[in-house]
């Protein structure tokens, strides 16, 4: 599927996928690292704030503690009367702004003394005797230090009798007895917690974040939601939410541990973290809640910029990659178009020129070279085809001239009983200029002329020379009935102005049919063979003469032979003896003689067909390089005794005129 897409698409998608992955990884990494940094930052900030808050609370608490301790020392040393006690308390409160109120509460059984208490109101300081309608001896702030024999910060409480504000009381046991051991009363200092809420809300914690303080028993004493203050504790919230983790966290906080933990806001129910820290002497614990939402909002805020930058970069990259990919593949597409046109046969289709030396430019260059070479090649092919066609047509012309001139009707003289005659001409691919001919030399049709020839050339030239030779021969034969004279005349005619030195080898025989007397001459032609009825072969070598058309003024000697009925003369051209087999061996005269004898027939046509078969057998598949021409003439005797078809079995006749005849 993917490999079917265009290169531009693939390139674009691959680059974009790669870059997109890197961008996504970078964005992801930065998201998590920013988140981690912000988390750490948040925790640091939380710890700083918590420290600041605890220091603040402690600095508010210490003057109260100091005042109470100093007052205790004073009372233990010097007994004071009621009025003195009130004045003392008033002076102390005025000089300690952090002190909301202070009391000296001696044990009730310790005489009917009052328990003076002075506290701040909007109208100034106010005196109260705690013994009036207030059983302080059952209050925690009285019992705990008395029993524990050490100063104790009370649980915060609403002082409904006194200032009606949320406060906490520091109570110090007083030992006025002689033993200095028995606790005889309690001195207290009150601290208003009303300012705590203001302190916590003044902290710049960010949206959805808040701080709270729980007391030593887990009760909320400072909380953004007033409904929680003194009404709920961290344990009651954990109970309501059935939250074990919160309960565990509460225990850690009231044990005075510090740390941080995952936390779900008891106000909004949103997830986040809490950082907690003890407020030393008071036994309280500060909690700072940071919501995840607020943190993530910041993370996203920071990451948004990256997202926008990344997306913009990606889109820009898309455009650039698409542009590059298209610019790379444009020339390839153009080449493709040109190649298609070329494939359709349009060699003149313009090949786009491509600038530069890159691979595509080189491809285009090769393409141009290929087309020009293709053109040259095609031109050459066309030229070769034309030349070949011309050659073929010349071959056809030569062959048609040659084949058009030789007689092809057999038997040629069906009404003549004195002889039988058959001839064959198998032209080579490039015709060799062979020919044969036969005609009567006289009006009485007693003298039959047999001719076989071979022009020493090939092709049209040979065919034309052969045509001239044959025509001249026929016309000259009217005046020269003797072969030797005829060849001499023919030679003179052909030699004249024969610049090309073309010549023809010729064998010419004139047979006087009534007597069987034969006169013959050879112009450089291979000697014919006479096959006598008994199978003996005679080669007519005696009539020797030069090739016809070579030199002017040549004389030819005549040979004589007397045919007896049954004699067969076999005329041939060197195409027979020089027929070659694939090993380039020649057929030769010996094989020819053997083939003639093996034919066992006087039937001229059968004999020649037999010879042709032998030649084909010998040559196998070798190409025929020269024309193969054969002519067989069988003499049956004079017309009166002509009906002698059984020549094969004829007894050996006496022969006349054997001079000059080679016996084989």
């Amino acid at each position: 599927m993917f490999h079917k897409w265009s290169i531009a698409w693939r390139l674009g998608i691959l680059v974009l996928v790669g870059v997109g992955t890197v961008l996504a990884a970078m964005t992801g990494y930065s998201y998590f690292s920013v988140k981690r940094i912000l988390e750490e930052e948040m925790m640091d900030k939380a710890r700083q704030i918590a420290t600041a808050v605890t220091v603040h609370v402690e600095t508010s608490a210490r003057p109260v503690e100091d005042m109470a301790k100093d007052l205790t020392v004073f009372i233990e040393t010097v007994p004071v009367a009621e009025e003195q006690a009130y004045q003392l308390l008033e002076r102390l409160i005025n000089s300690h702004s952090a002190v909301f109120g202070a009391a000296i509460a001696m044990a009730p059984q310790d005489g009917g003394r009052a328990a003076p208490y002075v506290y701040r109101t909007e109208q100034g300081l106010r005196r109260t005797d705690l013994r009036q309608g207030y059983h302080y001896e059952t209050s925690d702030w009285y019992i705990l230090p008395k029993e524990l024999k050490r100063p104790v910060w009370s649980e915060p409480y609403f002082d409904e009798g006194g200032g009606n504000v949320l406060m906490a009381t520091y109570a110090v046991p007083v030992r006025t007895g002689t033993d200095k051991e028995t606790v005889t009363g309690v001195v207290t200092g009150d601290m208003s917690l009303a300012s705590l809420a203001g302190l916590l809300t003044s902290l710049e914690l960010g949206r959805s974040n808040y701080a709270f303080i729980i007391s030593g028993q887990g009760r909320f004493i400072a909380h953004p939601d007033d409904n929680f203050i003194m009404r709920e504790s961290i344990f009651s919230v954990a109970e309501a939410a059935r939250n074990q983790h919160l309960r565990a966290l509460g225990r850690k906080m009231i044990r005075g541990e510090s740390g941080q933990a995952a936390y779900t806001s008891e106000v909004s129910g949103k997830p986040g973290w809490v950082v907690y820290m003890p407020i030393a002497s008071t036994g309280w614990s500060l909690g700072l809640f940071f919501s995840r939402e607020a943190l993530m909002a910041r993370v996203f805020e920071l990451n948004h910029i990256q997202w926008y930058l990344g997306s913009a970069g990606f889109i820009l990259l898309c455009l650039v990659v698409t542009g590059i990919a298209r610019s790379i593949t444009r020339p390839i597409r153009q080449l493709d178009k040109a190649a298609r046109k070329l494939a359709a046969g349009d060699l003149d289709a313009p090949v786009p020129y491509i600038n530069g030396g890159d691979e595509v430019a080189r491809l285009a260059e090769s393409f141009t070279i290929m087309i020009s070479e293709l053109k040259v090649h095609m031109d050459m092919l066309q030229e070769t085809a034309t030349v070949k066609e011309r050659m073929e047509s010349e071959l056809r012309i030569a062959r048609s001239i040659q084949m058009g001139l030789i007689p092809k009707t057999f038997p040629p003289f069906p009404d003549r009983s004195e002889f039988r005659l058959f001839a064959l001409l198998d032209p080579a691919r490039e015709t060799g200029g062979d020919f044969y001919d036969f005609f009567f030399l006289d009006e009485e049709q007693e003298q039959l002329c047999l001719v076989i020839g071979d022009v020493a050339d090939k092709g049209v030239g040979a065919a034309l020379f052969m045509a001239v030779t044959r025509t001249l021969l026929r016309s000259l034969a009217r005046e020269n009935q003797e072969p030797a004279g005829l060849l001499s005349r023919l030679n003179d005619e052909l030699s004249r102005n024969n610049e090309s030195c073309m010549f023809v080898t010729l064998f010419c025989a004139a047979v006087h049919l009534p007597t069987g007397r034969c006169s013959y001459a050879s112009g450089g032609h291979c000697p014919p063979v006479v096959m006598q009825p008994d199978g003996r072969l005679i080669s007519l070598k005696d009539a020797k003469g030069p090739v016809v058309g070579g030199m002017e003024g040549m004389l030819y000697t005549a040979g004589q032979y007397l045919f007896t009925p049954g004699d067969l003369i076999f005329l041939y051209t060197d195409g027979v003896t020089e027929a070659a087999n694939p090993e380039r061996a020649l057929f030769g005269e010996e094989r020819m003689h053997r083939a003639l004898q093996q034919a066992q027939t006087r039937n001229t046509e059968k004999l020649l067909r037999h010879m042709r078969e032998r030649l084909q057998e010998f040559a196998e598949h070798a190409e025929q390089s020269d024309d193969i021409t054969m002519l067989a003439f069988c003499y049956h005797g004079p017309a009166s005794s002509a009906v002698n078809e059984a020549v094969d079995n004829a007894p050996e006749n006496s022969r006349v005129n054997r001079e000059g005849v080679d016996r084989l």
Partner: protein
Amino acid sequence: MEILTREERGFTVVSVSGRLDAGTASDLEKDCANLINKGGTKLILELSALEYVSSAGLRSVLAVAKKLKAAGGGLSLCGLTGLVQEVFSIAGFDSFLPVYETVEKVVEKG
């Protein structure tokens, strides 16, 4: 086919070896024409190393003979043996070209 030429007392001897056929005949004709143009009008074709001669080969010999005749010179053949001798004999070249056994005999005769 290979052609070697040498001078021998006023005669130019051209030794031809190998096959003289349609493919090589024109080479012989060309070489001889060059020799004739240079003035070598008394030419001897020494053919003892010739293996085969075709009708095209005969034609080139004839052409050389004619050219020499026109130039007032002459061509002699020598060293004819076997098949080559037979071909030259059948073609009747011996009837219009002098044939000798060896080059020496041509030279002796002048």
